[in-house]
């Protein structure tokens, strides 16, 4: 228990350290600082524009009202904050191919944790978090939505997003065997494109696929519906998200063990 709490403290300190490094680095370049914020607004604007356009056209998206879709959009930004930690997986194959992954194997850290932390854009995450929180505060303060089961809703969003990102991580680990896995990742991303839509408008079979196999619905759609009070018994989604998360983490751990034995540290 003590060693677990020590490890937790260690990673919390590192989290703070990387956050600080990211902020200091962004402050070195004032234009980047400004642009990061503008970039985030544009990215969020894309989704907002999509829904705004549909409403202007009089298109109704399932049973979703405008305010509910705004909450959906807000939750998607929160989910994106967590997803940012997994973005390092994108370049894992390059670090494996040129051997620069070595440096994460010679430090007293879990190699994947060390790698992920070093690759995360904490500053961008912080901006996203500020934007998502502001949007949520606005929605609540203006009375446009009332939150139900907030704790469970946010827990499902966090765990569901982590579960999906673990799946992404699992696909990325294939790089230890196959070197370049760009296409496998692209295929997963093509599925992930669906997360921008409320997935309950999809046919049941597809929704099932996006809940139990590629858990996209647990990232935004189901958490938003929990927060809107749609479900009588939201705890079952929490258990489902947790179950999938545990399954993915066990698989990830086993695959990683084998993967590290395959590592050939080429490039030097």
């Amino acid at each position: 228990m003590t060693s677990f709490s020590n490890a937790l403290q260690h990673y919390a300190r590192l989290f703070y350290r990387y956050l600080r490094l990211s902020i200091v680095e962004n402050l070195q370049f004032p234009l980047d600082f400004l642009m990061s914020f503008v970039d985030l607004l544009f990215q969020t604007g894309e989704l907002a524009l999509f829904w705004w356009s549909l409403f202007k056209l009089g298109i109704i998206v399932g049973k979703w009202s405008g305010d509910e879709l705004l909450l959906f959009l807000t939750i998607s930004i929160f989910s994106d904050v967590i997803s940012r930690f997994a973005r390092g997986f994108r370049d894992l194959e390059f670090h494996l191919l040129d051997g620069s992954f070595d440096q994460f194997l010679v430090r007293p850290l879990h190699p994947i944790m060390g790698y992920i932390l070093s690759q995360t854009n904490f500053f961008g995450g912080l901006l996203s978090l500020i934007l998502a929180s502001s949007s949520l505060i606005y929605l609540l303060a203006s009375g446009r939505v009332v939150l139900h089961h907030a704790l469970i809703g946010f827990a499902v969003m966090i765990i569901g997003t982590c579960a999906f990102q673990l799946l992404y991580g699992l696909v990325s680990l294939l790089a230890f065997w196959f070197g370049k896995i760009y296409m496998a990742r692209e295929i997963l991303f093509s599925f992930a494109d669906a997360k921008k839509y409320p997935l309950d408008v999809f046919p049941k079979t597809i929704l099932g696929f996006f809940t139990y196999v590629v858990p996209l619905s647990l990232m935004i759609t189901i958490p938003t519906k929990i927060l809107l009070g749609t479900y009588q018994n939201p705890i079952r989604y929490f258990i489902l998200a947790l179950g999938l998360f545990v399954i993915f983490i066990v698989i990830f751990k086993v695959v990683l063990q084998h993967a590290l034995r395959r590592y050939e540290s080429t490039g030097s």
Partner: protein
Amino acid sequence: MPTITLNDVSKNYKQKSKTVEALVNLDFTADPGEIIGLVGPNGAGKSTFVKLLCGILTPTFGKISVLGWQPDRNRHLLTQNIGVMFGNRSSLWFNIPAIESVYLMRDIYQIDQTLFKERLNKYSHILEVSDILQKPVREMSLGQRIRIELLVTILHQPKILILDEPTLGLDIVSKNHFRSILVELARVEQTTVILTTHDIQDVAKICDRIVLINHGKKLLDSTKTDFQAMISQQAVIQVRREENTSDLTAQPFLREENPEWYKFVLPNASKTEFLTQLMACQSDLQIQVLRPELEDILYDFFQ
């Protein structure tokens, strides 16, 4: 007690249908405070050797023990006790002051605050980097950058320091400075230093032992004293090239030639006979007999 032991270690890589032997039946030991120079041509197996020590790679056969642990099985435990620096790969944050990278390493290695302050003062003074810690890494010269790399590698006082081509690209002054720091670490802190390098001067100036690897095999493992003996058994003869100097390229023991001189490396015992042979060829040759350098001895092993 040795800090590192390798018994009959081999490492094979599979490349498509064929197997490449990167290291073959290697035996090796290293003691605390020893500085060991690992030399060999490109592709000899030096990096594989270093990566096996760190636990990055798993040996195909044989046993490795580093500080009593099997590296590939106990990599996490080992990392706290070793310091690894890859000369061509930076672990510093490029755009921000170097001190931020130093703090990061403090948190990664969980160094106690008081100890950290002490060591930072001590090492930044020795490495002469106190004044540049607030400078962004991108604004530093290569020499300054390498010194900061070394600082973040030794802050947790590793028992073993593994340096892969650390002096690559450094000028003479920076190299000398860097070497003296390594010697101090080995002598004062009893750190075992493993140094892979292509710079023979690194080895000649600071290493207690030289290990030469080629084609994955250990061809030479010799202490400085043994080496001195080897050097004393060899001689270097240099013949100055004038307009009227005969062509000596057909002579035995020829190592190098350029427009200014011919260089011959030969056993000491053959020296007199060879000199007579040269004089017989042309009596007014300008000949210099020199003490061999390390690279003169290692040359044959590199072939």
